């Protein structure tokens, strides 16, 4: 336990539960018992004696000038301790992940509906909420910029960030060009595809507790994906050196990209430092829709040319991504989309361009599979369209063009690791199909589209099957120095060797705590491994995003364990008086093939603690040429998955029942097979949600459905049985050969479901999600 004098109750817990199992096994989660007992401390559970509650006033307008803010009435409201505006931001009133462009609190202008304008601290959450309503803001409402294409090209629109120095409302423009541009082909297919805005819809609300510290700093307990990124941005806003801003992770109720940007962090610290009291902030669901970024909606034109034999000749693609009011991860989305836009296929001649723009729509940033999800809907729709034009089996067409180890992508990067896309497609085709519906038997209506709503007994229901193969980059790209830090100690406790693993890497539900224990058990040959709460007293681990933590933080834990082991062996050698070759640790004993059991680890350790802190950096990547998009190695690793979806569609009502959603994925090395299956199934359902139901409805810059009543995510009734077939084709550059797992299934599931709906209905369906209005042709 990190020993802060004034730590809150319900503070983050050491995970010391004794569970066995090394790399390649499937031990249970060390936090599982706490979670099923209701004893796991999430950030929304934090509590401190005498704490206040914070609340945020948000802009009701997508674009407006602020003429004045009057906090007088709010401040006079009984129970209110503080009302803060931009004038109270102690440091630099700007933050941002990639581009520092977002005010902590709005100054003279608001750029989206939901932008934070003022803060209140009060003795009860309801008091704080009422005081927020008493803050009087004088807005001069402006016409919002809401069309992303115009935002990219139309110089007559207002520039939302004139300080950016980029033309119009551009955040990033990136072309990727390779081969000949004047090429023709036997068969050409094209289409324009659009994608709605998706919400991460993590269940645990944004929340945290800030406690002012005696040294003038602040302790912040919170849920996040990246403690050090949060600390850097928060310290800048508070005008404090980073070591005065100490962050400790509380339990995280899911993330999926939605916790990469700041939400409550700087705000709750400002309130705590201003009042001198502990302050808790917690969004409700509606505020959560305004308080975090979403997946970029997109408009994408794709044109493929191929030979009559079904070999791709060229791809031309134009993609627009609406980043909303602030940049967040828009530059990364453009980079990923343009470098992955061919899909997992070899295309000799490529002309791709991507634009990411500022508008007055809700800000968009990271969500599982960012920048790879959008083009996958386009290129996989195109592959089916091309197969149809060629009168060819769509699976066969994909196999003819699939990349493999040694393929050169359109960025110029050669795949110098296994890329078994053809094998994945073949295995997906060979998975057993769900049983056909028996038209003679009385159906269980719960198995049909519409379910218990009793909208059909099988009439007008058509079945379709669809495939999708996808590519995703793993970890940070384009020259970022991507690394993680791990501190591992080994000591004798009660006659047993016990390891402790300490990192800042966020456990968000994916099971990183389990993987860290497994690696330590494997490398140190001990049974008991404790996980220290994540905090900023250890070095940076980067974000729990980009499917990177098992690779990068796993690599750091492995490297630190190896250093601990080397130190132990040196001590053993000194104790034994002679060097022993091929030393290993097995079940807490030092063993060599030649000498048998030499000593107990606890005897070598004695009263001393061996502690080593190590960083793991993956091999360097390189930026894209800004004109051509060429790079010798833009991504450190690629991951691949294939989904096959089977759907039943009520063609009269446009209702869809997904009957099966089966996945084949290469994971390099299966560190925890059961947890990987859980990641793949959970990721697939998020992709399915985007294909059939999930869309934040935005019009005139306003979110029309900021609730779980109106923004629907799949329930257990919407979700089919899902087979998962894992293969392991190790990446020689990665620790244990691992390949990132979390994002690919989210990317392949959605296009497979849409392909199946197209197969069932014969419709084009160019928009995701495809709702009843699209399937029945009643959308407007």
């Amino acid at each position, binding site marked *: 336990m990190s020993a802060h004098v004034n730590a809150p109750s319900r503070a983050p817990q050491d995970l010391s539960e004794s569970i066995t199992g090394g790399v390649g096994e499937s031990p249970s989660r060390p936090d599982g018992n706490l979670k099923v007992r*209701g004893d796991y401390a999430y950030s929304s559970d934090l509590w401190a004696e005498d704490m206040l509650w914070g609340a945020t006033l948000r802009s009701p307008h997508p674009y407006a000038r602020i003429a004045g803010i009057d906090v007088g009435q709010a401040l006079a409201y009984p129970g209110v301790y503080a009302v803060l505006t931009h004038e109270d931001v102690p440091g630099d009133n700007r933050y941002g992940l990639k581009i520092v462009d977002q005010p902590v609190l709005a100054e003279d202008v608001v750029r989206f509906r939901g932008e934070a304008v003022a803060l209140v601290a009060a003795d009860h959450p309801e008091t704080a909420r009422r005081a927020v309503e008493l803050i009087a803001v004088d807005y001069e409402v402006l016409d919002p910029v809401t069309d992303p294409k115009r935002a990219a090209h139309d110089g007559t629109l207002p520039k939302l960030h004139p300080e950016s120095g980029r033309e119009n409302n551009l955040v990033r423009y990136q072309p990727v060009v390779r081969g000949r541009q004047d090429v023709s082909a036997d068969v050409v297919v094209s289409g324009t595809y659009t994608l709605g805005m998706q919400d991460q819809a993590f269940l645990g609300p944004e929340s945290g507790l800030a406690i002012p510290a005696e040294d003038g700093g602040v302790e912040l307990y919170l849920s996040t994906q990246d403690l050090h990124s949060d600390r850097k941005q928060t310290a800048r806003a508070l005008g404090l050196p980073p070591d005065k801003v100490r962050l400790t992770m509380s339990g995280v109720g899911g993330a999926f990209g939605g916790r990469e940007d700041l939400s409550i962090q700087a705000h709750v610290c400002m309130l705590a430092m201003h009042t001198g009291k502990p302050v808790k902030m917690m969004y409700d669901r509606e505020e959560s829709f305004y308080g975090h970024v979403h997946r970029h909606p997109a408009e994408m034109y794709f044109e493929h040319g191929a030979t009559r034999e079904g070999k791709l000749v060229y791809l031309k693609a134009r993609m627009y991504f609406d980043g909303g009011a602030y940049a967040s991860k828009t530059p990364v989305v453009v980079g990923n989309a343009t470098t992955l836009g061919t899909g997992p296929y070899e295309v000799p001649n490529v002309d791709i361009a991507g634009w990411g723009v500022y508008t007055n729509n809700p800000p968009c940033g990271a969500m599982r599979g960012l920048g790879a999800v959008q083009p996958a809907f386009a290129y996989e729709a195109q592959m089916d369209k091309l197969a149809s034009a060629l009168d060819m089996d769509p699976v066969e067409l994909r196999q003819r063009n699939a990349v493999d180890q040694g393929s050169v992508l359109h960025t110029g990067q050669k795949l110098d690791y296994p890329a078994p896309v053809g094998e994945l497609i073949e295995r997906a085709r060979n998975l057993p199909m769900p049983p056909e519906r028996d038209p003679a038997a009385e159906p269980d209506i719960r198995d049909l589209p519409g379910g218990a709503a009793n909208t059909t007994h099988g009439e007008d229901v058509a079945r379709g099957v669809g495939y999708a193969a996808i590519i995703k980059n793993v970890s940070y790209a384009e020259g970022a120095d991507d690394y993680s830090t791990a501190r591992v100690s080994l000591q004798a406790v009660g006659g047993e060797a016990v390891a402790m693993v300490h990192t800042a890497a966020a456990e968000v539900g994916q099971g990183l705590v389990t993987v860290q224990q497994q690696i330590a058990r494997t490398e140190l040959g001990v049974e008991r491994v404790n996980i220290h709460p994540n905090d900023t007293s250890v070095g940076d681990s980067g974000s729990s995003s980009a499917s990177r933590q098992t690779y990068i933080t796993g690599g750091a834990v492995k490297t630190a364990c190896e250093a601990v082991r080397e130190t132990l062996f040196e001590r053993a050698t000194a104790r034994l008086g002679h060097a022993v070759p091929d030393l290993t640790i097995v079940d807490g004993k030092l063993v060599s093939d030649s000498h048998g059991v030499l000593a107990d680890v606890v005897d070598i350790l004695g009263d001393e603690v061996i502690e080593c802190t190590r960083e793991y950096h993956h091999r360097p990547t390189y930026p894209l040429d800004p004109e051509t998009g060429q790079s010798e190695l833009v991504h450190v690793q690629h991951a691949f998955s294939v989904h096959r979806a089977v759907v039943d569609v009520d063609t009269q009502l446009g209702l869809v029942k997904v009957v099966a959603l089966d996945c084949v994925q290469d994971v390099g090395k299966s560190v925890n097979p059961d947890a990987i299956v859980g990641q793949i199934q959970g990721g697939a359902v998020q992709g399915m949600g985007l294909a059939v139901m999930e869309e934040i409805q935005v019009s005139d810059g306003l979110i029309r459905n900021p609730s779980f009543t109106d923004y629907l995510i799949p329930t257990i009734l919407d979700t089919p049985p899902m087979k998962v077939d894992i293969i392991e084709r190790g990446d020689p550059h990665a620790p244990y050969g691992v390949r990132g797992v979390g994002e690919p299934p989210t990317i392949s599931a959605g296009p497979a479901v849409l392909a199946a709906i197209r197969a069932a209905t014969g419709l084009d369906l160019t928009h995701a999600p495809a709702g009843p209005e699209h399937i029945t042709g009643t959308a407007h």
Partner: protein
Amino acid sequence: MRLNLTVNGRPHQADEAWEGESLLHVLRERLGLPGSKNACEQGECGSCTVYLDDVPVCSCMVAAGQAQGRAVRTVEGLADGDRLDAVQQSFVDSGAVQCGFCTPGLLVQAHDLIERNPEPTDAEIRESLAGNLCRCTGYEKIMDAVRLAAQRKAVS
């Protein structure tokens, strides 16, 4: 207002509760029982599910005053001391827990299902848990966990 209720078999009193507070708020913020979760606070996600006099309810949709004099059982009251209920143990063993935020509500709902229907079919499990959103697992391992819990309860 002053509120008296029984939670997990023990009498509790909450003083100075504001009349607009939900049962969920009182459990979490006044009685020190934050196991029931606050994911949507509008009755859509089921994370706050508790037994109110043996009937599962979304505690966010129950005004605290409605619980006056009644018996509440939360996720913290499912285990028998150190011994987890079969539903809890099965969620751990089946890998049905990832971030775990939906877990407390699902446990209470699944516990109630098996009490009422000791041998639920898959369709019955899905129907019974349709009011509990999970964003992590895709529900497959939750299905596994409920099937396993029913088996375990049948033989115990």
